[in-house]
């Protein structure tokens, strides 16, 4: 069951792994719920019908890009507007390309009918939880599915409540809920730590991300930083 080889053995998809994935995702649930409430409330405020809002949450399922899209939503949907929204979705979610690529060494030998539907509900927290689990020697793909399913259900349910309730969440800042995601992500760095030499890649990622955000704005800073860190990581020799 161990081994960090590049996926010549088929990873198991077990119920035990699924349950573990759900449990591992519990700490991030307050953040996912607050985020879902905000997306639902925004859809209601912008005049989307409940069904359209729910449909978008299920088939797009990428909250940050949906918030940006709803702010920029055209009054009449032309072909040009559709194209612009597709480009926006691809841009804000471009980091997913890198994230799903990183799953390949582990899950590449999984049957397509299992992995491709699972990738639809891949989200930042479930990806991180699964990569951490994998980096600690785990191989059960059920962890990815379980953590993705519970975050998807929690987020979509919360978005329905947010649509109906709207103003319940007027003051997420007071309780620090707006910072739950960055707090959780930063805490994940501790189990991912593999010595200061490897952390050079993280430093480069951070510097590039901040520079791109300050100089260019927009949504490319995560992808730019992640690519920079990843390339540097590829060229660091295993000194330690």
């Amino acid at each position: 069951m161990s081994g960090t080889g590049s996926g010549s053995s088929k990873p198991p998809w077990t119920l035990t792994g699924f349950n573990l994935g759900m449990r591992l995702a519990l700490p991030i649930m307050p953040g996912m719920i607050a985020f879902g409430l905000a997306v639902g409330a925004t859809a209601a405020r912008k005049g989307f019908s409940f069904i359209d809002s729910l449909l978008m949450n299920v088939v797009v399922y990428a909250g940050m890009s949906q918030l940006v899209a709803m702010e920029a939503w055209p009054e009449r949907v032309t072909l040009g507007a559709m194209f612009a929204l597709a480009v926006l979705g691809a841009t804000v979610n471009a980091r997913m390309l890198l994230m799903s690529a990183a799953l390949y060494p582990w899950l590449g030998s999984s049957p397509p009918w299992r992995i491709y539907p699972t990738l639809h509900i891949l989200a930042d927290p479930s990806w991180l939880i699964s990569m951490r689990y994998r980096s600690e020697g785990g191989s059960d793909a059920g962890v990815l599915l379980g953590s993705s399913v519970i975050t998807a259900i929690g987020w979509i349910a919360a978005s329905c409540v947010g649509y109906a309730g709207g103003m319940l969440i007027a003051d997420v800042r007071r309780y620090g809920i707006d910072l739950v995601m960055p707090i959780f992500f930063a805490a994940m760095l501790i189990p991912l730590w593999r010595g200061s030499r490897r952390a050079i890649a993280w430093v480069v990622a951070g510097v590039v991300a901040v520079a791109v955000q300050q100089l260019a704005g927009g949504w490319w800073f995560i992808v730019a930083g992640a690519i920079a860190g990843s390339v540097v990581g590829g060229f660091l020799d295993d000194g330690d």
Partner: protein
Amino acid sequence: MTAIESANFGVLAAIAAMAVATYAMRAGGFWMMQHVPPSARLRKMLEALPGSVIVAAVLPIVVRDGITAILAIGAAVIAMLLTRRDIVAVLTGMAVAAAARAAGL
């Protein structure tokens, strides 16, 4: 803001366009890897990715939010170092963020 006509074909088409683009990102990276020859360098690049994504996503927020984010994230990292439990880290970070804001930072 103008209300958006519901059950309108245009809205559904726009949602579909976003859905296709987003799924292309989610599945695309995985799919592309089938066509890239595996190598030690590529493996190391992918291994560096989780930490790099985290730092690239979080550091600009810290720069933007300033002292509250620094205190909250710093406290969470210390709690994680000490306890190795994510839930303790998250609750510590949220408590510090709430306290910092209550104190008017």
